[in-house]
């Protein structure tokens, strides 16, 4: 990570402003006390601790943040948001960063999480409700962990916890239209905003 061009990058990319707009909270309020890092149950698993993510957002380090694993490992448990002395809603910042990373196609750092998220939403989109068994099978297929949790299948079937015939469904047509509308509206909103979709693309001439 290069910090030599901090000031220029910050003003040029408007990354901080974009995160602020999308998250509804101001990352500039963070004074780096580290209480989020101290309380985050997933600090051990991430590549950046939460306070570091906030700092890099402040410094406009778009790529470093959007390519990090941490934003995908955030379990949205809201511990950070609850305890932040500066009332920064970090959980919302993480949501905003995940959305921006997905838009920019930068989900390589945590493919499995991205796949799981897409899988659940796919299930909701087609059935109105989640079909858990389908979810597990899809996840294993798409991540090539074919036998992950395989031994649990028979147990779960036996206990009646996995029903291959699926659940009831809810308001499928309404939900499908809802998904389509959201996709259409957000595409329009993105087109209207001049923010570049990926910092990598406008990086070229500067080096």
């Amino acid at each position, binding site marked *: 990570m290069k910090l030599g061009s901090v000031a220029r990058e910050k003003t040029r990319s408007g990354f901080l402003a974009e995160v602020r707009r999308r998250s509804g909270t101001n990352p500039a309020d963070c004074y780096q006390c580290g209480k989020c890092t101290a309380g985050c149950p997933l600090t051990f698993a991430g590549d950046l601790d939460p306070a570091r993510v906030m700092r890099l957002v402040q410094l406009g380090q778009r790529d470093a943040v959007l390519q990090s694993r941490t934003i995908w490992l955030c379990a949205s448990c809201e511990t950070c948001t609850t305890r932040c002395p500066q009332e920064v809603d970090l959980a919302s910042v993480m*949501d905003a960063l995940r959305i921006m990373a*997905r838009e920019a196609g930068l989900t390589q750092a945590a493919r499995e999480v991205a796949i*799981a998220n897409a*899988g659940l939403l796919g299930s909701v989109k087609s059935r109105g*409700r*989640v079909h858990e068994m389908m979810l597990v099978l899809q996840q294993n297929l798409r991540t090539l962990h074919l036998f992950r949790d395989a031994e649990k299948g028979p147990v779960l079937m036996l206990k009646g*916890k996995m*029903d291959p015939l699926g659940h009831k469904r*809810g308001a499928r047509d309404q939900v499908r239209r809802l998904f389509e509308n*959201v996709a259409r509206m957000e595409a329009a909103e993105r087109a209207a905003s001049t923010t570049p979709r990926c910092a990598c693309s406008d990086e070229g001439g500067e080096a």
Partner: protein
Amino acid sequence: MSYAYFPGCSQQGMAAEFDRSARSVCDRLGIALSEIPDWVCCGATPAHATSHLLSIALPALTLAKVKDADAVATVCAACYSRLRIASHELREDAELRARVKEAAGVECAGEVPVRHLLDILCNDLGVAAIRERVKRPLAGLKVACYYGCLLMRPPKVVAFDDPENPRVMDEVLAAAGAECVEWPYKTECCGASLSLARPDVVCKLANDILREARDAGAHVIAVACPLCHTNLDLRQADVARQYGVRYEMPVLFFTQLLGLALGVPEKGLGLNRLIVSPKPVLEKLAAA
């Protein structure tokens, strides 16, 4: 009070026993639940990690179907959180209301309060009323009440109790005769939705929680969330493999424990669906 009941997806599948026991308990306690017709998934974490609009519009679709109820009743902490946040944001933000209307095709101003069953038990019914109806007190059963993250956080939107040291579940189960232990991991996160994508991470968090509950002397853990339940109950085998510790710690939904005390027959509680069987603990208790 009339409650529009939102069961949630997991309560139709993996955690059907949560739904079943909640209905049985409410039936015993005279709490009338009427299921919201044609409800849809709350979107859970994947929705708000993908699109803010989607994460509000999905719950709005369900909330708009609520007619003539004093409150929406939920049992799953995650559904509770998503529905409550959506209703909160819809109340506060007129622009969002308009966008949601365009996306979901329904109007929803978030006027009907979204509440969790624990809140209803404690604050509408009252623990005294529960105590009166207890038939088989859970005397001698040491319970670690595990609230997880989403029931109490963020306090600006959801809190019906102290976010750092919640007491509602302890009070409800104490009214059922159980001895609720003091333990430090009441509100630590279990990894929730990472269960599918990163079981390794979830195992570490589950191990911490199980260890603290055991060290506090708990016989069982009580939960209010199907994700917590999966991570703590189903993952105990993985925890044993990853950390070499076999806890054999039964993890029950609080409604199952309450149901036992109220004399609900076992069939109405779905105890047989639990991976770590609570039978040995409960039998020892009955014998004592």
